[in-house]
């Protein structure tokens, strides 16, 4: 055979159509899933981000979880209800729930867990909430009764957080024994985690997979490339610019929901932003569609009110437009506040995340239209966090999500009576809003709660503890063979990984 340039070129071209032995091949029943970040650690109750949260939910399990519509359901707890006699929250545990060491999950384990979380030296994310628990009763191995210092209607949601893993009281400091659908079988530090199905999982017939291999791809474009090339069966956080490509790819599908949102925070200790009229002027000055277009490639929705998820009972169509784009009104508000000629200020964001920087630039442009000249400060994320927590800014751009879809889940962002942090406005007092949050938390009647939270929205629109800018879409990309997964709605998008126990290959 003669090897001419033409035959060599033809052979090279044909290579593209052959199944490549060089590419990763899937193992039967093992889902290969691309994570966006390596879990800093897998401590069950410390906040370690959503990627770590996925691994934690799958290995430790939770007392309660969420169904596909985002409704609270029992997981290790088969039921939960309030005892009308003394107001205690009563959790009944499943009798077939076991830890990975084979021990049954008992009420003593849950009691021990809550004590650890609420302890004085605890660094748990839900520490402050569980310090409201006055007494924990364990009348039998399968019943836990929680008596709180004050009535808390949202207490079951606390157990649905991904930083609320259930672990055995026999666990050693750095070796938690969970009760989730998968066991941690091994890890290549900084690179990948291998989970294998737990045969005594409390949901009969689940998990459907034999295992999951999580591979970390910090670069979003490479993560998407890994999905597109077939190296991964599924990835989290599909980059917005790649969502359309995912939808058009005949082999792939996208499951996305609007959940987290971008917002504006203020330092109200001094200067123009101490005046709520100026804050309202800012709220009316920004055309949100530009943010959705520029920062999220159209994958999101304008947010012109308090970030209440549409479709929930708490949502009000009119209140949701309370901070609509109205530059004339913005100018009038500035005049009323004696800033008719505008002013200059410093706007804090971060250059480390494109969505923060892009959003800040759009807001900067729109504020300039009403005479507010912002000088952008774009340090790295760590510096931005430090500056935010110390109030070293005048106005800042942030991206966040509520704890859950109950309006109380927004208190972490909007309740100004809580301690200062970079993700809440600094030195700002919104007493009516805070009061409404407290009232709603203590109210058990659903209809009354709806009214309370509508009042909370009215108060927030006037007091402006934050300004909502845009909902951003959060999506999982996957091979069409991956069946049974659903991105949870609203603030729960980051907890969607828990549903991997229902995933199978079609």
């Amino acid at each position, binding site marked *: 055979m003669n090897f001419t340039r033409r035959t060599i070129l033809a052979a090279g071209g044909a290579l*593209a159509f052959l199944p490549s032995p060089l*590419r990763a091949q899937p193992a039967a029943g093992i889902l290969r899933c691309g994570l966006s970040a390596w879990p800093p650690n897998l401590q069950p109750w410390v906040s370690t*981000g959503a990627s770590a949260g996925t691994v934690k939910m799958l290995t430790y399990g939770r007392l309660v979880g969420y169904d596909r519509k985002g409704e609270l359901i029992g997981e290790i707890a088969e039921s939960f209800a309030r005892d009308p006699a003394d107001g205690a929250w009563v959790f009944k545990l499943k009798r077939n729930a076991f830890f990975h060491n084979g021990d049954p999950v008992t009420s003593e384990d849950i009691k021990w867990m809550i004590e650890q979380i609420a302890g004085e030296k605890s*660094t748990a994310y839900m520490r402050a909430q569980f310090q409201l628990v006055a007494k924990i009763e364990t009348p039998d191995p399968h019943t836990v009764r929680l008596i709180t210092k004050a009535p808390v209607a949202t207490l079951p949601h606390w157990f649905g957080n991904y930083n609320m893993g259930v672990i055995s009281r026999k666990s050693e400091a750095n070796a938690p024994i969970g009760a989730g659908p998968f066991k941690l079988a091994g890890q290549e530090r*900084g690179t990948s985690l291998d989970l294998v199905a737990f045969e005594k999982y409390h949901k009969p017939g689940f998990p459907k997979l034999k295992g999951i291999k999580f591979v970390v*791809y910090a670069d979003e474009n490479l993560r998407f*490339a890994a999905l597109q*090339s077939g*190296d991964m069966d599924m990835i989290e956080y599909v980059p917005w610019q790649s969502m359309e490509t995912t939808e058009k790819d005949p082999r792939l599908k996208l499951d996305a929901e609007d959940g987290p949102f971008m917002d504006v925070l203020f330092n109200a200790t001094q200067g123009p932003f101490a005046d709520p009229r100026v804050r309202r002027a800012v709220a009316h000055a920004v055309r949100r569609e530009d943010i959705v277009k520029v920062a999220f490639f159209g994958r999101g929705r304008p947010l012109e009110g308090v970030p209440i998820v549409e479709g929930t009972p708490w949502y009000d169509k009119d209140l949701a437009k309370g901070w609509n784009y109205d530059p004339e009104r913005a100018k009038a508000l500035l005049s009323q506040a004696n800033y008719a000629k505008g002013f200059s200020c410093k706007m804090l964001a971060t250059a480390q995340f494109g969505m923060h920087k892009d959003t800040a630039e759009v807001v900067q442009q729109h504020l300039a239209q009403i005479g507010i000249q912002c000088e952008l400060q774009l340090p790295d994320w760590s510096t931005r966090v430090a500056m935010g927590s110390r109030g070293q800014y005048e106005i800042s751009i942030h991206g966040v999500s509520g704890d859950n879809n109950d309006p109380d889940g927004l208190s972490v962002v909007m309740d100004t009576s809580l301690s200062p942090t970079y993700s809440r406005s600094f030195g700002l007092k919104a007493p009516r809003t805070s009061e409404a949050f407290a009232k709603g938390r203590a109210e058990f009647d659903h209809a009354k709660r709806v009214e309370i939270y509508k009042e909370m929205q009215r108060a927030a629109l006037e007091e402006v503890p934050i300004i909502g800018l845009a909902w951003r879409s959060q999506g999982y990309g996957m091979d069409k063979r991956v069946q049974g997964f659903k991105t949870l709605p609203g603030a729960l998008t*980051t907890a969607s990984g828990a549903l991997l126990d229902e995933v199978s290959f079609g």
Partner: protein
Amino acid sequence: MRWFLRRIATCLVLAWAVSLVVFMTLHVVPGDPAELLLSTGGIAADPVAVKELRIRLGLERPLLDQYMTFLSGVMRGDLGASLVDDYPVTKEIALRLPRTLELILAGTLIAVILGIPAGTYAALHRGGLFDRIVSGAAALLLAIPVFVVGTLLVLLLAQTLKLMPAGGYVPLAQDPAKHFTLLALPAIAIAKSLAAVVFRMTRASVLDALSRDFVRTARAKGLKPARVLMRHVVRNALTPVLTVLGLHMGTLLGGTVLVEYVFNWPGLSTPLLRAVEARDYPMVVGIVLTISGLFLLINLIMDLLYAALDPRTRAA
């Protein structure tokens, strides 16, 4: 011997200076490791929990006290533990450094295999088609940033042709074939600029050697052209090439960040970047100290070699 001891002492003083500067600078830069850790994912951290974690991590102690503890640990070969997950820094470096070195060595090997023959051939056919094309290509490769080449390689070979994996890492012992497949693209990306440098340097050196008297003499003696080329031209031309190669390899120790990031290669750069973001002080200082230590070691070896070759340098 005194000269040698003086050089060693200088290296130790420099290493100490690096540790002091990096340690102190890191603590001056804004950002609290405890707060960052507890607010992972952009959520609000409880200030009481932050304070508790700071105490637990030893961050509430005076800075000098923290530095002295670190220094005494270094004396015992212990670089401390990560603030994020308590993982020993020395173990992390022992795990990651070989991967970075492997990447650099693979890239260098490709650069040498391509650059030296191509440079020699181009010099021998100076001004010819090959010389013009490859010289142009070398200039282009030097001009294109490594992340662009990396992204293009992923786009073409992984996403479009689906011939190669997009990136990642598998240990050699687990699956050698897959290991080398995953090594190929980042190594090519590393080799890109280096090959261009080696090509240019070889070409210039060979041209210089070709014009030397000893080459003319060798030819006049009737030696075969191939023997003249290999024994007299290339051999003499390679000395400056190797010097440049050594310098570039040293630079690559801290310069593989982008390649490791683009190809998800878990070398030393990735934890360094992550540690800086998380203000994981022991991890940052440990890795920087290791990299600078290697630099100092390479320099020391070079000094010793120069001194062996030319004793006059010892007096300098």
